[in-house]
């Protein structure tokens, strides 16, 4: 699994960097621009452009080199421990018309479907799950908010199924990178290569999530701090970012 580590930052705009990391909900800087691979093959260098106002740019560079590398902590601005406070691409960047139509989570140990939601947007409560219950609030297409009960954090293995449709252009090298965070801490990094997608197809993928081992303290903090657990899902076609979805999670449901 690749880990992000920070390569360097421009000195100009330290204020912007600090304000981004401090205030994720409403960044004072507008984060714009697509992520562009600069040196594919060797390791990807992603350039993230932060613009404060037109004509004034500061670049922060994230360098993905491979598993097991850590940067010197003092050289990483805190903003890079959590990816971004805003979206890294626009909805229009989804030129392949990839549309997510269903999401389902099931407990692999019992086979119970814990949660399922399909387009059109519906609120669903699974009656079969005795302990786990879920509330979903779908606001905008690329953001989802989940509320689970504390029992959800005791699960060990779940199967997460995602279903998506593709427009009439064939898609080569479709890849998803998903990162889950609690506050500044990376809980789980997930990298999946779908490969080729047939035009006008509907595809599903179930992957097995093993819950990371969390200490009781962290579990308690996650329950007591709803929606501070967040995830970013990045979708790439031929190494170009075409979609960025976000979600946040609460574990205090039913209380």
């Amino acid at each position, binding site marked *: 699994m690749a880990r992000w580590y920070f390569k360097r930052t421009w000195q100009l705009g330290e204020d912007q960097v600090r304000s981004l990391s401090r205030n994720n909900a409403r960044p004072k800087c507008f984060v714009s621009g697509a992520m562009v691979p600069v040196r594919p093959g060797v390791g990807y260098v992603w350039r993230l452009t932060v613009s404060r106002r037109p004509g004034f740019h500061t670049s922060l560079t994230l360098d993905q080199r491979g598993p097991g590398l850590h940067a010197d902590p003092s050289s990483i601005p805190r903003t890079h421990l959590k990816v971004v406070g805003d979206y890294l691409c626009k909805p229009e960047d989804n030129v392949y018309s990839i549309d997510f139509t269903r999401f389902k989570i099931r407990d*692999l140990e019992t*086979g119970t479907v814990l949660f399922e939601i399909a387009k059109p947007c519906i609120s669903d409560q699974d009656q079969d799950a005795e302990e786990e219950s879920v509330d979903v609030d779908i606001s905008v297409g690329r953001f989802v908010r989940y509320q689970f009960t504390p029992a959800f954090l005791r699960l060990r293995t779940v*199967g997460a199924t995602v279903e998506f449709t*593709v427009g009439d252009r064939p898609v080569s090298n479709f890849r998803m990178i998903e990162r889950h965070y609690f506050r500044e801490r990376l809980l789980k990094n997930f990298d999946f290569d*779908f*490969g*080729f*997608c*047939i035009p*006008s*197809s*509907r*595809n*599903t*993928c*179930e*992957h*097995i999530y093993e819950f990371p081992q969390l200490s009781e303290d962290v579990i308690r903090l996650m329950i007591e701090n709803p929606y501070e657990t967040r995830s970013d899902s990045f979708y790439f076609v031929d190494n170009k970012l075409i979609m960025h979805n976000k979600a946040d999670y609460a574990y205090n449901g039913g209380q």
Partner: protein
Amino acid sequence: MSDLRITEAFLYMDYLCFRALCCKGPPPARPEYDLVCIGLTGSGKSSLLSKLCSESQESVVSTTGFSIKAVPFQNAILNVKELGGADNIRKYWSRYYQGSQGVIFVLDSASSEDDLETARNELHSALQHPQLCTLPFLILANHQDKPAARSVQEIKKYFELEPLARGKRWILQPCSVDDMDALKDSFSQLINLLEEKDLEAMRI
């Protein structure tokens, strides 16, 4: 706990420590194998895989792209990429062959003569495809519960498996979505073939 159990527990802990020190990690999880599952539309690929994953059959619809599932068995996890079998999708099958370690081919034992011929052509193409020709094949003669189902012997003869697939590893098994035991047994045999291939690769 009895003395024997305590001893066993200590021995196991020693084993874990040994592994942790020497191998720098926990004991290995079940091995995973990447498989591709093909066959004509209606042959029953989605239904069989759903059943193996303990999912309800009601939600199964015709696959119009790929469907990736992780199917757990006691001694392995099979990551199966099932591909739709309709005419307009079959031409893309080969785009998914790369990286496969095994093939599952599902056919409808009770299909029409024309469809059976189409299935035969597709199976032969797969057996000869450069990315699949060295891999183990599990061929499932599905829909055995239908009255018009052809027997395994007839299928073997019609598909010319003996001459064509000579020198390759393949298993031909009858099955139906109602007989889970037979289905699981077929997959166990496939897992054995996959393990053998793994061992072979390690010896090289």
